[in-house]
């Protein structure tokens, strides 16, 4: 009898997940699909929306634009990040520890903060532009448009590759390198023949993440793109102009976006399956000291790259302490911006804590349960949950926003404008990452440890609670903090779902930048940066020198 109850815990949670995923993910996506193919007036199947998109250059060129930016950014990020990770793994670099933290920090802010800061630095009225213009008479290249997006996103996203590849390097056994040298393959040749193939699966995984982030990034092109329209902006505009009416056009663009990311995902999966293998290193690669010109070049590369990527953050923090006159920075320093930020945006700060915190709680509980079901209770049904849970990974944030807003604006369930819908969006967006890291953690725990507990008389649930969860805890906490950081800087789904009452810091920074309130924006962005930094410090405490995985 008791035994039956325990079985029910797992089967009922399985059922629960199926219902939740159906309501909050599957049905919204299906509604999106039907909106895009069915004419809301006649109820007939139609391709009109797609014809409209592919019929006008104004629309379909954005797809090309997005591709161009994304592919280039992915390549640049892979090149910058891989080389930097290689330098960090192989060579002694001064201040490597601090640099590592700076790299992580620069990747953790919302991309559009970088965009906004680069405008302050290199824009028409930017400090550097003026400096060169006034003093030296040199006209700086235009930062707006394609080049600006490329700059901002490459600098924003190469740290992901750096983190991934650094992790891979820590799994490469040094004796592999020695063996290849012993067999007459060393230097640059060894880098191409041995090192690149060894880290390729990781590079591909990182490249996919960069691609997804870049393709679906909304804030950067909105701020710095000016005339250069990308795909997410088209979705956003279409959605906003149709608000209240039929959502057919926005829905069909969203469907196209999903198809694009799905294809990329499948291609990546195909390639990386071919190249996948497991490594386990006993002798880790140790950084060695190098001398002369080589040393100088390695240091120059590392320091310049990292300075460029952290500069926008630093400059935003600096400007937050500047005196403001209306919306313009003037000389002298003050805390005015902060006073304004706190007096007017208090609720945004609170929302930025509350919404991610509630989401985080659910993400953790769901991720642990799903990971356990997927790894320890393998069945056809849990395999389906596993696949479905990965769907949001390939759905751009803005599409999640549209799908949810669409599905829950009419009865039976009305959630638009509520905090709940923002929480749901965050849960859906973040769950795949947390599930993957929980699954990875759980796979490392030998099943015999759980069997030992069972043989010592612990019930199924007690084993889960007293043995499995505590053993997963280090991984769970580390994952939770990372989720937390990405949640507080989430813009793309929030921008569609927020209302006056539920706006977050990130949304607020974005709107203040658009309105030209640079002082307040800088102050809010600084608060966000402080929150992120604090979270990272806590993360490092829990993660004790292990690698950061996203």
């Amino acid at each position, binding site marked *: 009898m008791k*035994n039956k109850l325990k079985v029910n815990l797992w089967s009922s949670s399985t059922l629960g997940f199926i219902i939740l995923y159906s309501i909050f993910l599957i049905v919204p996506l299906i509604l999106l699909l039907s909106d895009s193919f069915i004419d809301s007036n006649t109820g007939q199947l139609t391709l009109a929306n797609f014809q409209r998109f592919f019929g006008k250059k104004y629309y379909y060129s954005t797809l090309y634009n997005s591709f161009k930016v994304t592919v280039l950014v992915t390549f640049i990020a892979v090149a910058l990040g891989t080389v930097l990770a290689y330098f960090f793994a192989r060579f002694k670099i001064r201040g490597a520890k601090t640099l590592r933290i700076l790299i992580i920090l620069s990747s953790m802010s919302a991309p559009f903060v970088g965009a906004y800061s680069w405008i302050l630095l290199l824009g028409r009225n930017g400090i550097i532009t003026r400096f060169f213009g006034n003093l030296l008479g040199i006209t700086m290249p235009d930062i707006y448009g394609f080049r600006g997006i490329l700059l901002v996103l490459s600098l924003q996203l190469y740290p992901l590759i750096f983190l991934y590849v650094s992790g891979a390097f820590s799994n490469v056994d040094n004796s592999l390198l020695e063996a290849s040298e012993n067999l007459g393959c060393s230097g640059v040749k060894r880098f191409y023949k041995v090192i690149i193939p060894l880290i390729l699966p990781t590079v591909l995984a990182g490249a996919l993440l960069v691609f997804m982030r870049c393709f679906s990034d909304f804030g950067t092109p909105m701020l710095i793109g000016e005339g250069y329209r990308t795909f997410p902006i088209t979705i956003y505009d279409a959605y906003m102009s149709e608000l209240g009416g039929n959502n057919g056009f926005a829905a069909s663009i969203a469907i196209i976006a999903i198809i694009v990311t799905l294809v990329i995902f499948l291609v990546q999966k195909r390639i990386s399956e071919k190249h996948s293998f497991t490594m386990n290193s006993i002798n880790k690669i140790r950084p060695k000291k190098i001398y002369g010109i080589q040393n100088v070049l390695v240091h120059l590369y590392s320091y310049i790259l990292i300075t460029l990527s952290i500069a926008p953050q630093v400059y935003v923090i600096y400007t937050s302490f500047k005196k403001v006159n209306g919306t313009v920075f003037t000389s002298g320093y003050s805390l005015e911006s902060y006073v304004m930020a706190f007096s007017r945006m208090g609720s945004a700060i609170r929302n930025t804590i509350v919404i991610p915190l509630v989401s985080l709680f659910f993400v953790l509980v769901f991720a642990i349960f799903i990971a356990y079901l997927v790894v320890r209770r393998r069945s056809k049904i849990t395999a389906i949950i596993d696949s479905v849970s990965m769907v949001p990974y390939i759905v751009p944030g803005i599409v999640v926003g549209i799908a949810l807003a669409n599905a829950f604006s009419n009865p039976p369930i009305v959630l638009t404008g509520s905090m709940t819908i923002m929480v749901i969006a965050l849960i859906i967006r973040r769950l795949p990452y947390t599930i993957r890291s929980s699954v990875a953690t759980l796979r490392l725990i*030998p099943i*015999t*440890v759980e*069997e*030992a*507990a*069972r*043989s*010592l*008389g*612990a*019930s*199924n649930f*007690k084993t889960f609670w007293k*043995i499995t969860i*505590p*053993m997963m*805890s280090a991984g769970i906490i580390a994952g939770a903090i990372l989720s937390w950081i990405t949640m507080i800087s989430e813009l793309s789904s929030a921008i569609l779902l927020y209302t006056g009452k539920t706006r977050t810091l990130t949304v607020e920074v974005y709107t203040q930048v658009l309105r030209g309130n640079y002082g307040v924006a800088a102050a809010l962005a600084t608060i966000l940066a402080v929150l992120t930094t604090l979270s990272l410090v806590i993360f490092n405490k829990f993660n004790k020198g292990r690698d950061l995985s996203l």
Partner: protein
Amino acid sequence: MSVAININHALKAYGKNVIISDLNLNIKDGEFFTLLGPSGCGKTTLLRMIAGFNTIEGGDFYFNDKKINDLDPSKRNIGMVFQNYAIFPHLSVRENVEFGLKNRAFDKKNIGPMADKFLKLIQIYDLKDRMPEQLSGGQQQRVALARALVIMPDVLLMDEPLSNLDAKLRLEMRQAIRNIQREVGITTVYVTHDQEEAMAISDRIAVMKSGEIQQIGRPQDIYHRPANEFVANFIGRTNMVLADCNKNEVSFLGHKIKIKNLDYNGKVRVSIRPEEFIITDDKNAIKAVIKDTIFLGLNTHFFMELPNKQIVEIIKESMINSNNESDKEIYLTINIDKVNVFTEDGTKNLVIANEK
């Protein structure tokens, strides 16, 4: 209280893939019983069926008179020691040992003293407040043993518990396990692929291959009278020589030997262990040529070529002044009492058949 284990017609299958087809086994109360066999023979599968971690597709498993087929692992009252020890890494040594006691309706004030008793018995009392990551492999193994025994299980199950230890520690732990098992007097089922370990530690051994038991017996029986050629080769080493058998007279290489308890006509395979060849000066004995020698300290192994070009292995105690260089001709006789004769297909020991 320990129990006898009876297994009747056990069946284990994953889908259509049958691992164990029809296995019968009786393990006596208090016995140290070992399942021995090469990897993939089904020994661990069988152990995990007893533990309850593998489902039982058919047959009956009994602890004394109690059928355990559908009993939850947590209700079987077994102590289990795993190959990787499976120590809970987030609990101290003492907490690991107390874990099982806390899951039982056990008087709270007895938990501490009970754990102490076993920590002392297994000689890890001094380590009781350490965390597992601070322990060596051997110490972790002791914790695993204490944790399994402290709950006073009916049966102790051990799955290759020594295979992750280095050679010296393995011998030490082997003896420790044997002594503790005798002291506690608990029915123990032990799984290993190491035949020497099995012989050193067991009361009885079941030699398994492809999910079937080849032979059950005391270590001495299995070594001296292997039931078939597989067992003869798996336990220790042996040389197989083709011969003709006429009643109790076996002839090969032009020589004839008479073997007690043999009555068979036809082609046979004679199993002669390396130590049963005796070097002699008798020129009428079997002629052999030394091809290679391996010096191992106590013993020296010789590889010799018989007149039929077959290479046999012979073990002799090492001598101070030996001049057994290659290509030297010598003569061999055989310790007839210890020779085993198998049918030509190697499936049956003809000597055992008549001894019974």
